């Protein structure tokens, strides 16, 4: 018998991980630049 079987979690939250913001900004910027590059080089 698992000790956690008798207590059921009502909510599983996803708390922010410290330091995510710089990573978010860098990745988002690279992604936007990449998308812009793709769009500029796509035939209309």
């Amino acid at each position: 018998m698992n000790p956690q079987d008798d207590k059921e979690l009502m909510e599983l939250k996803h708390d922010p991980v410290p330091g995510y913001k710089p990573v978010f900004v860098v990745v988002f910027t690279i992604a936007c630049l990449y998308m812009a590059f793709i769009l500029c080089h796509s035939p209309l």
Partner: protein
Amino acid sequence: MTSEIVMAADTALATDLMPALIFMVGGLLVPFFKGRAKSVYMLLIPVVGFLNLIHIPLGDHHHLFFGDFNLVLLHVDRLSLLFGYIFHIIAFITVIYILGFKNDVEYVAGFFYAGAALGAIFAGDLFIFFVFWEALTLGSVMLIWARKTPKAQAAGFRYLLVHAFGGLVLLAGIVFHYSHTGSLEMSLMTLSGPGSWLMFFGIGINCAWPILHPWLTDAYPEATIGGAVFLSAFTTKTAVYALARLYPGTDLLIWIGVGMAAFPIFYAVIENDLRRVLAYSLINQVGFMVVGIGIGTELAVNGACAHAFNDILFKGLLFMTMGAVMHRTGKINATDLGGLYKSMPWTCLFCIVGAASISAFPLFSGFVSKSMVMSAVAHMSHNPGQGALVFVWLVLLFAAAGVFHHAGIKIPFFAFFGHDAGHRVKEAPLNMLIAMGIAAFLCVFIGTFPQYLYSVLPFPVDYEPYSISHVLTQTELLFFSALAFCLLLLSGIYPAEQRAVNLDADWSYRIGGKKLYHILAGILNPLNTGCEKVVRSVASASAFIFKDAPARIALFVSVNIWLVFGIRGRYLELRKSRLYNDAMEGTMPIGLGAATAVGFFILIYILN
């Protein structure tokens, strides 16, 4: 009845059996076997069925002459064969999967259900199709009830009501169609009359079109572990087959398919029950197929059929992995699971294969079929007047990203990784692992060598999925979706998994229906009570009046006569009393009757 039922079969085909009968009759005999013999017997049914199928030539077989009708029990062409192959394959895999459950109800219902699906896709006319369509409902509802929980019983009843209604609509459509055309042929139809519209709508219920879909997300997660695998394969795919046979190129299907592909994404993201997530995902994938059928070109219909073939495998695989998790832990909610990759590594691996396939990763099966539908939409959008299909293509792209998110990432992440729920369980039983292994192998095999699947599609295939453009576009889409998931999770924006009931279109008949009942009861019950009161008071007044009316009339006439003749006092009271009692008993003085009759004649004379 003078109609004569005659069964006829070509002598050359006398040994060919109806695939449906092998499963339905074979399944009914399962409870008579015990132990290892039962397992062997169950495995033999789909094997024998498949061997029988590959020996049946194309064309119509097994005619049933019923009165003026020539019913065709078995029609084999490339479209029905494709579905026949995959139905046999998934039946074989699912039988391996459920061997350990020792549940005869599930076994019999599963075979009956698979047989009904085979009967429907090989039906040569609309009447035979309808018969097996209804049998499909019976088999599937038994798989839901076989779980024997109150929730399963309630969901099964709702499922039965919806499908009984859908069946009636289909039957009404067939009757209308026959009365207008005099034909029961299962051939191309246009939405031009009530018959074709009703059939279209009836098939749409089984296809889980938007708003008509809640039966699926309501019932499938409540089925038995093996039942959910069976269910994921047959009902919706039989409907897809019917649409491909009857309504290819119907523009309306494009927009219905777009809705199916898009809306379940939002529900799947917030859903806590992982089998319900897969149920929403099932609608999403069927949406791609419906769009392909709506486009109607050879590439699109091929894509829709290929995706149905693949979806049966990878969706079945995902349901099997979640079933294995449920079997070992007794849990299926994301809030209760996590960290199982250590305890169930093989199941985890197979789940990832299923997730990669449904997400259409290159080298996995979903890639080689979903891209056909997407390409067909893109090609069609270049045609004059078809610019709106660019929007369709964009929505499908969104849906492809969404399915990767909820089925490709969410399912394996919350079951096997994510937060450790502390379950320390055994790996899934060997038979389950073998079944999942076969399905996973086929997902990779078809994704790597698509030419084998392409060779059995309804139309000749001139399509190369592994072009740089396709691979690059799809890979970009998937990696950006993965990136979005990671960033949402790291930033804490990703919605929490909650033990809750999400409102869906079934609200209209589950809650809305109750409210409508209360409103109607509030209006109609007082009306009913008022009417009852009026009728009762009128009746009692009439009874009071007419109870002694003859006696009173007799008294009125007689007393006045007696008064004229001078009868008074006690003697008068005595005569009144006697006359009243006599009149109540039905005896009247003869003179009085004669006087009344004379009075009536005089009255009539005056009135004339």
